[in-house]
């Protein structure tokens, strides 16, 4: 991890006099691939070259070429996808197909390019599109050479190359990234998971950076592994200066980048006078800032709707607060900005927060600035309160598991500041259930159950309660349930409006809960919440074992047993597994006519060395086994 200024390399320019990459007249027969690059690979990148030339701080040209040999039908490298928007232009996109001997089979041209709107599924409109070129061939191995050129401006310019050198199950013969930019614009970069220094050369006022690699062996993707940003080689870059639609900015630091974003937000938080008055009235008798925040957040939730429109710089710049007030909708930026304006009206300072929502492949760090964000929330620093402004039903201050526990960028008047959102611990994400099941002699049963969930564990219930109709709620419950042929008699899902908590209550009949065989009755102890999803056995685990979230499940299942039966065999006694990363306790308590199964399963976020994978897996296997425990009853002899 390093950040280097261009001038440091001026002295090294001589090194770059090495022969340029030979692109011409090269053929790629598959048999020249060494075995070491075939092992574990679905495809071999024979050559990849990405050249990015920034002519100014506004626009650049990307010239891309990739030659890849597909070894088998698990490879999906027979296609290239080029994203673009209204500010960018794809100039040339073509491919050549070669057989195993490197003989050209055909050229793949224009008429096979497909062009699609890159719709994210929740935007009403965005100008992103992509071109897809697929080259299929049936006889493996075969080789495809892709080439394209595109002119980039706007957001596609500013997001400088993020070069994933290698994919899983892919080996690389040689590959290079070259970035040329005016010498007075610095280039920042970060090299991940490989030892690599660029060659730097300067000519005619432009500086060129060249990274090249050779002979990377294929890497297998493993379950519970760290993200590919921690495993696979990659070069991430960012410009020292840029200009989008007349807005100048820099990625020299988070402070500078945040200052740029702040300018995009500036002057957009004016409320219409009537609304300003309404906001003041709404909070007039509130006794604390936290109460004001809660009231205004409720106001936002009641009145506004999430609608996403992303056009040009509109990808980074919000609609102004007046537009949101008039139309009663906005995207995450617009709604956060609007909420900020509401709070400002009552004297509370809040900052927009740039954040990566959802799975977190890369945690942004202080020493390298590049926007890896896809979402905006709001922070009230004085109250240490965070607000997810696109939600219509979360309690004030709860931002959801997808936003929790990560580095984010606060956009303040002084520029950007990194901060960390509150984490959800295993203790916060609880699901505690108590279920009474009356088992009848024929194996049928009736059950009533109450579940109390909190934190990440409650979010699904909250959404279901808010969005599903009665009928869909029942369908959803039945689909999620692991119980056999349940006849639902009642179902209640309630979310606590003020706390991240929800309850689920249901009652139902199960005609086939226990299985009857002759004079015996086999009763599963935990059909309600059995652990599933044991990862596969691995002989040579290579990477650490990583889990990013935690939970606590406590289930109490009380079985009322039929008369005239006695326990034939005592199920195995208590099991107790305690590891640093997880613990599991289960026991069966037998009383006359009654059996109680109590389990407590807690998993914390953790990272274990690769050697402990088998221990982790065996832990889960024991959990899985204990969850399958059966109670065997036999008819009492009369």
């Amino acid at each position, binding site marked *: 991890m390093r950040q280097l200024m261009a001038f440091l390399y001026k002295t090294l320019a001589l090194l770059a006099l090495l022969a340029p990459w030979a692109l011409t007249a090269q053929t790629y027969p598959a048999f020249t691939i060494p075995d070491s690059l075939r092992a574990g690979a679905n495809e071999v990148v024979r050559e990849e070259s990405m050249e990015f030339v920034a002519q100014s701080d506004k626009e650049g040209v990307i010239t891309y070429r990739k030659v890849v040999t597909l070894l088998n*039908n698990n490879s999906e490298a027979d296609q290239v996808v080029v994203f673009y928007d209204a500010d960018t232009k794809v100039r040339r996109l073509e491919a050549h197909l070669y057989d195993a001997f490197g003989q050209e089979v055909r050229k793949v041209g224009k008429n096979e390019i497909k062009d699609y709107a890159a719709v994210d599924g929740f935007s009403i409109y965005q100008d992103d599109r992509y071109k897809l070129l*697929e080259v*299929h061939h049936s006889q493996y191995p075969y080789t495809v050479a892709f080439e394209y050129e595109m002119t980039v401006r706007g957001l596609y310019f500013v997001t400088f190359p993020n070069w994933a050198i290698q994919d899983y199950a892919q080996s690389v013969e040689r590959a290079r990234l070259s970035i040329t930019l005016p010498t007075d614009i610095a280039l920042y970069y970060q090299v991940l998971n490989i030892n690599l220094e660029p060659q730097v050369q300067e000519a005619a006022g432009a500086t060129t950076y060249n990274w090249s690699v050779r002979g990377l062996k294929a890497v297998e993707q493993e379950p519970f592994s760290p993200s590919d940003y921690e495993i696979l080689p990659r070069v991430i870059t960012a410009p020292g200066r840029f200009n989008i639609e007349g807005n100048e900015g820099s990625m020299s630091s988070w402070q500078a980048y945040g200052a740029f974003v702040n300018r995009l937000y500036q002057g957009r938080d004016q409320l219409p006078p009537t609304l300003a008055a309404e906001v003041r009235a709404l909070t007039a008798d509130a006794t604390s800032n936290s109460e004001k925040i809660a009231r205004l957040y409720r106001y936002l939730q009641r*009145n506004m709707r999430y*609608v996403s429109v992303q056009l040009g710089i509109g990808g980074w710049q919000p609609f102004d607060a007046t537009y949101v007030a008039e139309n009663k909708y906005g995207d995450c930026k617009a709604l956060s900005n609007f909420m900020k304006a509401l709070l400002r009206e009552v004297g509370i300072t809040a900052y927009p927060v740039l954040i990566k929502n959802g799975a977190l492949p890369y945690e942004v760090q202080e020493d390298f600035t590049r926007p890896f964000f896809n979402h905006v929330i709001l922070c009230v620093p004085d109250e240490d309160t965070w607000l997810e402004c696109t939600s219509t039903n979360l309690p004030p201050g709860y931002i959801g598991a997808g936003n929790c526990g990560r580095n984010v960028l606060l956009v303040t008047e002084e520029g950007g500041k990194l901060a960390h959102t509150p984490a959800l611990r295993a203790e916060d994400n609880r699901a505690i259930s108590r279920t009474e099941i009356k088992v009848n002699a024929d*194996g049928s049963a009736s059950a009533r159950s109450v579940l109390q969930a909190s934190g990440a564990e409650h979010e699904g219930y909250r959404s279901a309660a808010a*969005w599903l109709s009665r009928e869909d709620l029942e369908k959803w419950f039945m689909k999620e349930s692991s119980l056999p042929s349940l006849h639902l008699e009642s179902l209640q899902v309630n979310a606590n409006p003020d706390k991240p908590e929800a309850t689920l209550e249901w009652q139902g009949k199960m005609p086939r809960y226990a*299985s009857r065989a002759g004079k015996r009755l086999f009763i599963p102890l935990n059909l309600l919440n059995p652990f599933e999803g044991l990862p596969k056995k691995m002989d040579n685990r290579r990477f650490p074992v990583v889990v990013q979230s935690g939970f606590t499940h406590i289930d109490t299942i009380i079985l009322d047993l039929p008369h005239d039966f006695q326990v034939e065999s005592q199920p195995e006694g208590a099991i107790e597994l305690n590891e640093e990363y997880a613990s599991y306790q289960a026991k069966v308590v037998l009383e006359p006519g009654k059996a109680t199964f109590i389990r407590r399963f807690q998993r914390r976020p953790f990272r274990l060395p690769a050697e402990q994978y088998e221990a982790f897996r065996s832990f889960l296997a024991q959990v899985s086994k204990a969850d399958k425990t059966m109670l065997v009853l036999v008819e009492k002899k009369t």
Partner: protein
Amino acid sequence: MKLSPLSMAGALMALLFLLFSSDAQAQKEPIKWGKVPAEELKMATYEADTSAAALVLADYGNIYFDLGDGKLKYVLEHHRRIKILKRSGFDYGDVSIGYYEDGEKITGFKAHTITPNGETFDLDKSDIFEEKVSDDWARMKFTFPRLEEGAVLEYQYNLTSEYYFSLREWYFQREIPTLYSELRLKIPEWYDYIFLNQGRNYDVSETDQRTESIRVPNVVQSDAFGNQQRGIDLVQARVNAYRFAMKDVPAMKEESYVTTMDDYLARLRFQLRSVQYPGSGYNPVLSDWPTVAKELMEHEHFGQQFTKSRFQRAVMEELEPVLAGAATKAEKAKLAYAHLAKIMEWDEDYSFLAGEDVDDCLKRRKGSSGELNLLLLAALTALDVECYPLLVSTRGHGKMLELYPILNQFNHVAVIADIDGQAQLFDLGSHARPAGIPRTSSLNGMGWIVNPANPQWIELTPPMSKSARMFKIAIDGQGAVHSEVQEKHEGYYAVSYRQQILDDKECAFVREDWQKHFPDTEVQSLSFKGATDLSEPVSLSFQADVPAGAQVVGDFIYFNPILMPDFEENPFKLQTRDYPVDINYPFDLNNIFFVDIPEGYAVEEVPESVKITLPNEGGKFEYLISEMGPDKLRVICRLTLRQLHFEPADYPTIKNFFDILLEKQNEQIVFKKQI
């Protein structure tokens, strides 16, 4: 006119309205822009369906024709009014209207939101977006401002279209309830349309004929430079006016195991049958099946693709090395199919026409469902095998209409060929599927053979797919289970196993499947047959060691012989059902277990043997357990399902059938230690 009630099967009714009732067009328009009745503005829930998140208050369409500039066009005036009842209905505030960029345009667009207290907010024109979806298809998108619970949303536009061959279909039913939906049409008698109505009876159905003046272009004269002056003539013509309406249409609710919900939605489709202008001859647009077959055979993107020698040569060049050893036509046909199945990839698109010439597809090794099968037809034709295209509408595309030669009802073509006097079905598109096994999506009941001499509908009945598995099981005193397994898969099961083997030659999926049930299972001595020869069944043989396959508790061993159940859960979990269940293909899943009685133990108890059947030999499940000599038990667990279609009334039967199967799958054999 009253239609007979529809059966729940959604049997499609195609009716030509020739009735002469009165006043179809004299009626006032059902809704006026911005004039929302107070009770609808105030409405907080919809009593007939309190779960409704939104409601179509009124949907009004008016279709008429326009010849003003010499090009025949039709205009659809569309006016829709939606009530938002709950927050979860806000999605209905996002609207997208699709149109062809070439030949269609949208004019007169307006939209506004009316809040429950009667305030109106217009949609700003700058908030309307045009999005190009594909080369010719685009859509207009917008979202309503100021949504709130109780708001009424209204929008209106005119669509002018040159695609008069089939008018825009009209949906009376949607995924939210509809209070009122009405479509009016005014069609000059010169145009004869077929009306295809399905799903529900009309509450209003009126037809009326009158004489009207129609503006038609006319070339009046040429000026000195030869330029033609266009003029307008008024022509008197009889015009048919129609009015169809439905009231209180319930929401359509999605269910699984149906062909497509479109088969059940209340909707009306149109198809131009003929054109006859005054004083000119009758121009059939839709003719009859034999003519359609003849035209298709001559069509550049259909018949020519396999009759032209250029295409036949291209495919034969590819096939020649493969066919070298074959003696008979039948053998050659099979080899040709097998080779094309191996090299050609399906691009996941359905079509019955070739968008690209088949020789280009062959070069690309890829094509749509139509391109692949037209390519195969070129090969079979070149081999002088009697073969025909078989047009199909896939399950997702909806039911077929035997009555009318409407081509856009189809979206796929398969191949039917005479192989040694037997009709054999071919359907390229998978590396794993043999001849005789069409893709499951094309199992939609029937298909139409494009044979100009004898065009005909045939029934498509998929063969029984079979899976037979035999387990020889030994259990030790610790509960470890050792099982020798032989499996044989035919039909669609063979296809699925073959595909898995093609993707994973080491067959790690076998071990992974077992480990899902028993975490520490080891699989050894695995071998398989039939992975490459498509016409063979796929056989697997291996040994599975399951450390805790049986539970040893005290003096007892409890053992469930169904180690690998065919069904993890009941596919029919819901208690009731509104639409029929449609299953793809019949199947027979036969599991036989030979269980050695553990040494030092005796059989204490075994599950009860059962045999249940569905009426009319629709299906059978048996679980039979018996002793085989002094130290062995045999368990047979077999499910056969022949009936593929179940009416909602029969739903409990099929649900219960699976309930019993799942129950038996869980039952235990009890062994007791001998002292």
